[in-house]
């Protein structure tokens, strides 16, 4: 009896509900164009908005001394490719460029430092993001294609060894342990955490690392194993540091490494492993990276600028803007910005078209910001 009544009332109600809902639908469709702002308002109202990959902040702008007047007139395309570690910085810069010089068409790809240099030296892209200095072979390739380049350090990074947030044991590893874990001989031998350190659990150890084209991989192997590119091969590799971070965050037995900015972005789900290079355990932080105590995994990040293309206004304008906002972009991306003097030196080098690498063919381990400045200053002299 009661059910029948409810059915009846439902039947009566349905058209009413339909009538209420239908007329509103077109209105919602009509607000399509304003949807972005609508959603943003809702997001602000949301109680627990999650960490956005790159938070909305005041837009990066060049300093007041920067002459913006001609920027809008510049037309042309800029193609950038290379390291995923440097990508966040360049992306921020690209945003600035797009807003200040809307007629510059920025193309930004990620192919790893090695992949980026391949495209760069072949003239396919005008700017290469690099998480390590150019290698001799790559220099040769560039020379082959007549691509002279200017090497510009833009930020300081610390390669961060990370584990799953729920990993309670691996809070600190010595350099030797990292070597034990990653050297080519470890393959098939070091399979569990207890193989790294005896009092760690006997759970299997899962390795994640940037791919072979990655400058980070090169730097890490040189710093830990001693030989660039020398590492066991049974790890899960990707040029996409986001994927690495997400995988490690989902695997309690995982250990991996990548640029500090990616750790920073996923720091709620990852735990950094302090590195003991003989002076005690040091966790990667902006301070430890900036003051050189996070050794030997701290390193500079670069962009390489093709000198033949620098004559084009779009490239010149892009580089000019990049250099003027690099400090802020580096910080905002999650790296340690270089001292202002370094960016001044960079500008000078670009202006003078000072080509070539300061690093004598490859990664140098344990270079501090001071040493970097010394090198740059030296080249100036």
């Amino acid at each position: 009896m009661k059910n029948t009544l409810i059915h009846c009332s439902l039947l009566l109600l349905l058209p009413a509900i339909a009538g209420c809902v239908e007329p509103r639908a077109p209105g919602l469709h009509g607000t399509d164009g304003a949807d972005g702002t609508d959603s943003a308002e809702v997001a602000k109202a949301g109680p627990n908005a999650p960490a956005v990959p790159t938070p909305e902040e005041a837009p990066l702008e060049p300093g007041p001394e920067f002459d913006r007047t001609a920027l809008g007139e510049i037309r042309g395309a800029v193609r950038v490719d290379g390291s995923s570690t440097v990508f966040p910085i360049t992306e921020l810069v690209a945003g600035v460029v797009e807003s200040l010089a809307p007629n510059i068409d920025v193309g930004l790809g990620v192919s790893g430092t090695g992949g980026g240099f391949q495209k760069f030296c072949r003239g396919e892209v005008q700017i290469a993001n690099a998480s390590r200095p150019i290698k001799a072979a790559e220099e040769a390739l560039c020379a082959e294609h007549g691509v002279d380049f200017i090497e510009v350090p833009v930020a300081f990074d610390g390669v961060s060894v990370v584990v799953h947030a729920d990993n309670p044991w691996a809070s600190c590893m010595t350099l030797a342990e990292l070597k034990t874990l990653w050297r080519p001989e470890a393959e098939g031998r070091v399979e569990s955490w207890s193989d790294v350190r005896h009092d760690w659990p006997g759970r299997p150890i899962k390795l994640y690392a940037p791919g072979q084209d990655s400058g980070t991989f090169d730097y890490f192997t040189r710093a830990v194993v001693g030989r660039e590119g020398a590492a066991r091969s049974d790890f899960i590799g990707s040029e996409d540091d986001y994927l690495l971070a997400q995988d490690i965050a989902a695997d309690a037995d995982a250990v991996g490494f990548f640029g500090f900015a990616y750790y920073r972005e996923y720091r709620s789900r990852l735990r950094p492993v302090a590195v003991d290079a003989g002076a005690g355990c040091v966790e990667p932080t902006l301070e430890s990276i900036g003051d050189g105590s996070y050794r030997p995994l701290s390193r500079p990040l670069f962009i390489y600028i093709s000198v033949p293309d620098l004559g084009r206004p779009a490239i010149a304008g892009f580089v000019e803007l990049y250099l003027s906002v690099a400090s802020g972009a580096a910080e905002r991306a999650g790296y340690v910005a270089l001292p202002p003097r370094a960016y001044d030196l960079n500008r000078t080098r670009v202006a003078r078209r000072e080509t070539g690498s300061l690093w004598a063919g490859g990664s140098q381990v344990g270079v501090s910001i001071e040493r970097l400045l010394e090198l740059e200053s030296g080249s100036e002299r």
Partner: protein
Amino acid sequence: MKRPRLSIRQQLLGAFGIDLILMGLLGGLALVNMSLMAGKADQVQRYSIPSLQNVGRIHDQVERYRTLQLEFMVHRNRADRDRLVHMMGEVESSVADGLERQRRLIADDELRTHTLQEVDDALDAFDSLWATYVRANRTQFLPAVRRSSGGSVQPAWSRLNPLVNELFDAVERLAQLDEESTRDAMAVVSGTHRSSRLFILGDTAVSLLLSACVGLLLAARLAGRIGDLSRATRRVADGDLDQHVPISGGDELSQLAVHFNDMVASLRHQHQTLEQRNDELEASLEEQRRLTEDLVRREQAEAAASQAQAEAEARDSAKSAFLATMSHELRTPLNAILGFVQVMRLEATHRGEERHLGDLGRIEAAGKHLLTVINNVLDFSKIEQGRMDLEVLDFRVGDLVREVVGIVEPLADERRNRLVLDMADGGPGAMRSDPGKLRQILFNLLANAVKFTDSRLRRRRPAR
């Protein structure tokens, strides 16, 4: 145990009432449970199912959005990308519609519970994540892909993975909450069903047991008490009037027992009265028998007496008859004698032979006297026979007296007595009586007086 003062009907009604209450409880619980189940079914029908469908649609739309992002990366053609952005807009409004519909469902749901509050929160969480995702798509993903120059990896895509995962988790959470609420509702329904079944079975069993117990107890007690009464009745029927049925409670049987006891008491009393009456009757009968015997005896005596009397009377009568006959037989010759004396006297007078006249007079007088005697005897016999005849006549007293004196004078002379009649010539007059009887009386008196008197003078003066 103190038995309640309740009548059998009240006890039966009480048992019936308890059964009714139990059945009422049963009905009430069944109603409550059924409405509870109906409510839950209603909730599932009105909220859970549409909600699950809606959440499913939202999930599909989010997936579609992600796919559109992928297509946006693949298609480098500007027209394709514009089309994809438009389709993203459609998905966004579709999700907004879904959210609106979901909020309406929650708001419409009158069975709003804390679980639905959780649904509300989950919906808010999804809403906020979705807004973030859409914003990230518009402000980061689309520009990043647009400026992407075709590197080997796509950070803009993978960068959104956590957000997308959270988004799907939020949708899953919504679906999970709906499933939980559905499961809870079903659990409530099945639990209610189970408890209802248990209660119905239990209640029925209790009702049956109670009814059976009450019925059996009542029946046993009634049977026992009726048995007591029956036995007592039989004993009373057998004559034992000292029976007393114990009285307990206040029901009809107790009243019956009371009445039975009263009846027995009354019987006893009547019995005693009857016995007393019987004794009295017996005494009376004895008396009557005795009286009868007396009567018989008396009657016999009376009969004997009567017979004796009859005999005596017969004898008397015979004697009287004899006397009468005799007198009559005597009188007839005597009358003849007298007649002849008279005739002789007349002849003597006539012839003047005086000397014979005296003697003839004496013979006549003596004859007359004899006749009188005989008449007297006759009278006696008549008296004895009850047939005394009186001959009432008007006659002159002087004549009668002179006649009697004439008769007695010779007797007085014989005895030398002198009889003097002192009477006026006329005499006292006439009187009305039986002259024969009177004459006889006078004669007897005078004769006796002459007979027993010697040489004396008696003067007879008749009284008036």
